């Protein structure tokens, strides 16, 4: 069996976690893809930490509003019922527990629920932006990541080696191999993407993985 990276599977699976009306923050990069797969009957309220609720899709070419961007600085639109606010309110919403889900990319995530995604010492120091507040404040934190680093090492670690973004805040990790829940300092493999098998995944993952009896394949 050969591993083929598949970001879309990650986004598709995460997109089915939400319920109508959930307030969700999708990080820049892979997490942004999630928006493409949310079922039509599930209306989410997307929060953008630069100061809005009701983040809408990108505008048509020529329709860009220079005052309306997402947290990456790219032009977006506002959905009906959305609103704008300042950065203190934005992070009040986040830190105050008013965001149901945050989905963000990681460099590493470990079985204690720690994650690292803002710094590779001596190499890359982009800064944490809103990631520390989002992981600390959101009710459910979902790490979205390809299962393997380019080197082939798994991003699911026993212990993160990079500087941490947050301690014990990750609830779910969705990779292109499966959906993992963090519980009691272990990863529980709840669902796996076929053709991979739980045993195959476990054998290639650095962290401790529990395979519960009801572990099942992802069905879209």
């Amino acid at each position, binding site marked *: 069996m050969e591993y083929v990276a598949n970001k879309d599977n990650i986004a598709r699976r995460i997109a089915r976690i939400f319920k109508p009306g959930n307030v969700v923050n999708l990080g820049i990069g892979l997490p942004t893809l999630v928006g493409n797969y949310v079922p039509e009957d599930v209306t989410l309220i997307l929060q953008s930490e630069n100061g809005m609720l009701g983040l809408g899709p990108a505008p048509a070419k020529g329709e860009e509003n220079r005052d309306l961007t997402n947290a990456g600085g790219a032009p977006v639109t506002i959905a009906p019922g959305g609103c704008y606010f300042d950065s*203190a309110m934005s992070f009040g919403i986040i830190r105050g527990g008013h965001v149901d889900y945050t989905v963000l990319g990681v460099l590493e995530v470990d079985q204690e629920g720690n994650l690292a995604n803002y710094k590779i010492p001596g190499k890359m120091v982009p800064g944490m932006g809103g990631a*520390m507040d989002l992981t600390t404040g959101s009710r459910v934190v979902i790490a979205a990541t390809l299962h393997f680093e380019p080197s082939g090492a798994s991003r699911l670690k026993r212990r993160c080696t990079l500087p941490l973004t947050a301690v014990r805040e990750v609830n779910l990790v969705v990779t292109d191999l499966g959906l993992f829940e963090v519980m009691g300092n272990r990863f529980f493999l709840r669902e796996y993407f076929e053709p991979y098998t739980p045993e195959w995944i476990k054998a290639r993952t650095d962290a401790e993985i529990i395979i519960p009896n009801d572990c099942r394949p992802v069905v879209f």
Partner: protein
Amino acid sequence: MLQKPVISASEAAAKVREGDALMVGGFMACGSPHTIIQALTEKGTRNLTLICNDTGVHDLKSGRVTGVGHLVQKRQFRKIIASHIGLNQETQRQINAGETDVTLVPQGTLAERVRAGGVGLGGILTPTGLGTEVEEGKQVITVGDRLFLLELPLKADVALIKAKKADRAGNLVYADTARNFNPLMAMAASLVVAEAEEIVEVGEIDPNAIHTPGIFIDALVQAERLEG
């Protein structure tokens, strides 16, 4: 209600002095005072400390620079306090070369620290950053069975902010996500200059729709450069 002076961008830039702590509004250059930034870049005032959400964009390959990135490029800062510098490769280069001292602050903490500076709080307790490098050198306060970091207020000598509309009394309205840090910085500096796309007479803005009260504003600048 006294009217606030409307000054030129270069007059605004002249209010920033060597060594000042400078707050600049905007988020990835959205909502930044581009007209004043340009004037300050031309003036070249140095040894500044920047407090800003980020340092905008600077792509060393394409040469594209946005927002306060222009000031970074001219090495006008000796210190930068920001939450994110990931899209400014020149900032990254200055860090690696030891040319500029950069302190990274979680974005929500940065917002609360600026707010605390403006509203006279001695600090705020946040769970953000506990157990990370952000904790280093900070007081950890126990409340009941929970731990928090004590984060201290930030103030500045000058704040340069950007509004969509201002009235002559200095009351401001921001547009969309261009609001971001602007209303917070308006409260936290000794001298505040607001660049506005439209400057109207007193009474033309609904008092319930005003985002920043005019008392915080010392001078207005007519915006001429809306991007960059």
